[in-house]
C-alpha cells in the first residue's frame, strides 16, 4: 500500500475542501487535521467537506436512521423517510487504534446501505486521545463516532463530549447479547459499548511445561511451584510487565482480586501487603527476571516467544502474532485464582461511542449497529485476536486460546474510570515489583489510595 501517495493526493483534496468550505462559518473551527487515509474520502471534488461540522447536513435533522431490511433487520430505528442513497453525510471517526485506521471493511459494508455516506477516520494516539476529545467541547465540533479506551467514559460524560446512547440502547433488540460489563455507563446513562474485549490471561509454554512434567497451574501456589521448577531447570519462570502507570495497573488487577482486594476502596485490606510480598518475592527469587520488569507487555511477549520462558501474563491481541513467531506449542489459561478469590481481569478493548457534538447521531448509531455491534462483525473480530462481546458471536467450538479468553470475559470487570488512582496504583505496582518500594510501604501507600477512591 502506498500510503504516501495516497496522502499526497489527500492533502491536495483537503486543500480543495478547505477552499470550498471557507465561506461556511464553521470553517474556522472545523478540525482540519489532515484526513486519515480513507480511500473513500478522496473520490470527488463535489463531495462534502471532510469534517462533519462543515458538511452540508441536509440529512441530519430530517433523516432518522433509515434501517435496511437486508443487513440490519433488527435496527431499532423505525424505517421511514428517504432511502439510504439520499443520505449524504460524512461520518468522522476518531480512533486510537492504528490498525482500525486502515480498516475499511465496516465502511464498505455501510456504504452498501448508504452509498453517499463518507468516512473520515482520524487516528489519535491513545495517550492524547482523551485530551483531544475533551478539547473538542470548545468548538463543539467533535467526531461522530469515537473508538476509545472504555476507561474514559466517566471523564467524557462529565465533559459532555459523548452522546447519551440510552434511548438507542433501550430500543436495541440485541442489547441482551451484551454482558453488562461491556456497556459503559456514567451518571446512570449509557455512553459507550465495548464491541470486543482485550484482556489478560496466563500463557504457558506447553512444550517446556510438558518436558518438565508440570501441570498447568490454576492457583497462585501452583504457579509459584511451577515457576520454581522452571527456574531450577535453568529457564525463566515468568515474564510480566512491571511498567508504571496505566499498563501496570491493568496487569496487576487479577493479583489484587486473588487476595480479595476487589476495588480501589479495598486497598486498605491487609492482604494487599501479602499480594505485594508474594509477587515481589517472585522477582527476588529470580522467577521473574528483574531486568525485564521495565518491558511493556508488547516487549515481554518477544521474550516469551524465544521459548525459554515458562509463563507470561499476556493479552489476547498478542496471540496470533506470537503463534506464528514461536517454535513451540503454547497454551492459554485463565489467571490463577488466589487464597481469597479468582483472578479477575479487566476488560479493555475498544469502546464505541457517539460524539456529543455529532450532527448525525442517528446515522452514527445506525453505523454502529449495522457494523460493529452486529453478529457478523463481532465474529469477524476473532480474526484480529479480539474477543467479541456478543455472547452469540463466540463459536461453541472455539479454539483453545480463544476459549480461555472467552471464559475470562464472563467474569471480567470494566476498567476503572478513576484515572487519578489508576495512575497511582500502576506506579505502585511498578515500584513494588522493581524493589523501589517494599511490600510493607507499598501497602501503606495503597491504604492511602483507598481513602480517596471513588
Amino acid at each position, binding site marked *: 500500500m502506498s*500510503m*504516501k501517495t495516497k*496522502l499526497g493526493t489527500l492533502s491536495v483534496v483537503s486543500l480543495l475542501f478547505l477552499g470550498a468550505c471557507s465561506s461556511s462559518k464553521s470553517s*474556522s*473551527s472545523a*478540525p*482540519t*487535521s*489532515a484526513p*486519515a487515509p480513507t480511500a473513500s474520502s478522496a473520490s470527488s471534488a463535489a463531495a462534502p467537506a471532510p469534517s462533519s461540522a462543515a458538511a452540508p447536513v441536509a440529512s441530519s435533522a430530517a433523516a432518522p436512521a433509515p434501517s435496511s431490511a437486508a443487513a440490519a433487520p433488527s435496527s431499532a430505528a423505525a424505517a421511514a423517510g428517504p432511502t439510504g442513497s439520499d443520505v449524504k453525510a460524512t461520518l468522522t471517526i476518531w480512533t486510537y487504534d492504528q490498525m482500525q485506521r486502515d480498516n475499511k471493511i465496516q465502511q464498505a459494508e455501510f456504504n452498501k446501505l448508504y452509498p453517499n455516506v463518507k468516512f473520515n477516520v*482520524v*487516528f*489519535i*494516539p*491513545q*495517550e*492524547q486521545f482523551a*485530551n*483531544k476529545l475533551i*478539547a473538542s467541547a*470548545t*468548538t463543539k465540533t467533535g467526531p461522530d463516532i469515537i473508538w476509545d479506551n472504555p476507561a474514559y467514559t466517566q471523564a467524557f460524560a462529565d465533559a459532555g463530549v459523548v452522546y447519551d446512547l440510552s434511548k438507542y440502547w433501550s430500543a436495541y433488540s440485541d442489547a441482551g447479547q451484551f454482558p453488562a460489563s461491556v456497556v459503559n455507563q456514567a451518571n446512570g446513562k449509557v455512553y459507550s459499548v465495548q464491541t470486543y474485549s482485550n484482556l489478560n490471561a496466563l500463557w504457558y509454554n506447553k512444550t517446556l511445561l510438558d518436558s518438565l512434567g508440570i501441570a498447568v497451574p490454576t492457583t497462585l501456589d501452583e504457579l509459584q511451584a511451577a515457576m520454581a521448577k522452571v527456574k531450577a531447570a535453568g529457564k525463566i519462570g515468568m515474564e510480566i510487565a512491571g*511498567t508504571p502507570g496505566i*499498563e501496570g495497573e491493568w496487569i496487576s488487577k487479577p493479583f489484587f482480586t486473588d487476595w480479595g482486594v476487589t476495588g480501589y476502596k479495598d486497598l486498605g485490606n491487609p492482604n494487599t501487603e501479602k499480594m505485594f510480598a508474594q509477587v515481589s518475592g517472585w522477582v527476588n527469587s529470580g522467577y521473574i527476571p528483574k531486568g525485564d520488569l521495565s*518491558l*511493556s*507487555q*508488547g*516487549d515481554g*511477549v*518477544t521474550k516469551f516467544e524465544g521459548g525459554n520462558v515458562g509463563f507470561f501474563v499476556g493479552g489476547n491481541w498478542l496471540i496470533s502474532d506470537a503463534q506464528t513467531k514461536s517454535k513451540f506449542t503454547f497454551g492459554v489459561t485463565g489467571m490463577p485464582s488466589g487464597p481469597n478469590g479468582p483472578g479477575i481481569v479487566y476488560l479493555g478493548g475498544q469502546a464505541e461511542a457517539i460524539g456529543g457534538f455529532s450532527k448525525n447521531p442517528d446515522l452514527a448509531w445506525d453505523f454502529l449497529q449495522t457494523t460493529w455491534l452486529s453478529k457478523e462483525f463481532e465474529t469477524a473480530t476473532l480474526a484480529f485476536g479480539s474477543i467479541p462481546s456478543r455472547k452469540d458471536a463466540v463459536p461453541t467450538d472455539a479454539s483453545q486460546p480463544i476459549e480461555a479468553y472467552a471464559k475470562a470475559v464472563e467474569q471480567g470487570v470494566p476498567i476503572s474510570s478513576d484515572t487519578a488512582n489508576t495512575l497511582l496504583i500502576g506506579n505502585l505496582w511498578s515500584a513494588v515489583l522493581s524493589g523501589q518500594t517494599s511490600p510493607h510501604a507499598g501497602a501503606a501507600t495503597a491504604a492511602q489510595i483507598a481513602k480517596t477512591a471513588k
Partner: protein
Amino acid sequence: MSVASRSRRETVPPRVVLVVLFILYAAPLLTLLVTSLQGQGTLPSLSPHALLHPHLSAFTEVIHAGAWRSLRNGLIVSTGVTAVVLLLGVPGAYWFARAAPRAGGLILLLLVFLQMIPTASSVIPLFPVMTSWGLINHLYGLILASAGSLLPFAILLLGPFFAAVPDSLYEAAAVDGAGQFNQFLRLGVPLIRNGLTTVGVLTFMIAWGEFVYAINFLSGPSQYPASALITQFLLPYRTDWPGLMAASLIAAFPVIVIFLIFQRRLAFGLASGAVKG
C-alpha cells in the same frame, strides 16, 4: 596515543580527557547509525554479523509511518517560530537595549524568569487557553505557543548585541537625517548580523526539538513535526529499536545539516558573546 606531540602544554591528562569525551559524544551518534541499520524485529547488537549486514527496513518503515510529512511539518513549525521570534524579538530587543536602560534590571529579571518556565508546566494552562481560542489542531497555534516560550530567550540573547552598538552611531545617523525606523533597519539590524544568525539558528533548533506542546496541541501524528513523531515509537507496544533509531536519525538530520552550515558563524556568535566587550 602517540608521543608525537612535544609541546609542553600537551600533557597526558588532557589527551585522555579528550578521548573519553570523544567516546562519550560519538557513541550515541554511532549508536543511532548502527542501530537504525539493523533489521526490524531483531534486537540490535554489536555482533560483527549484525554490523556487517545493514538493512534499510527500519527506514522504510519510518518513512511509511510519515517521516517525510513530519519533516515538512517540523520545517513549517520551526521556520514559523523563528520568523515570529525574530519579527517580534528583534525590534523588541532593540527598544529594550536603547530606550529602557533604567527599567533594565526589572525587565531582565522578568525575561530571565519567563524563559525559565518549564514547557511541561506551561503546557498545563496553555491547553485550556489554546483550546478556548480555537488554536489547537493547527500548526499555526503550535507556532504561536512555541514562539511565546522562546521569545524571552531570544530577547535576552539579542539584547547585548544591540547594547554593544555605541549610541554615537545612532546619533550620527540621526544627524544624517535617518528616521527612527531607518536607524533600526539600516543601522541597528545590520550591525548585529552575527547575533541574528545565532539567535535564528538556535531558535530554529530548539523549536525543532520541542515535542511537549506538539503532542498536546496538534491533532495527531499526521500533524506532528519530527520530534513529536518519535514519541509514537516509544508507545508501549513492541519496542522497535531500529525504527526508533531511524526516526531519531531522520529527525536529527536537519539539525546536523544546519549545524554544519552555520557551525563557524554559530561558534563565532557563541564565542563572541563571551569574548567581545
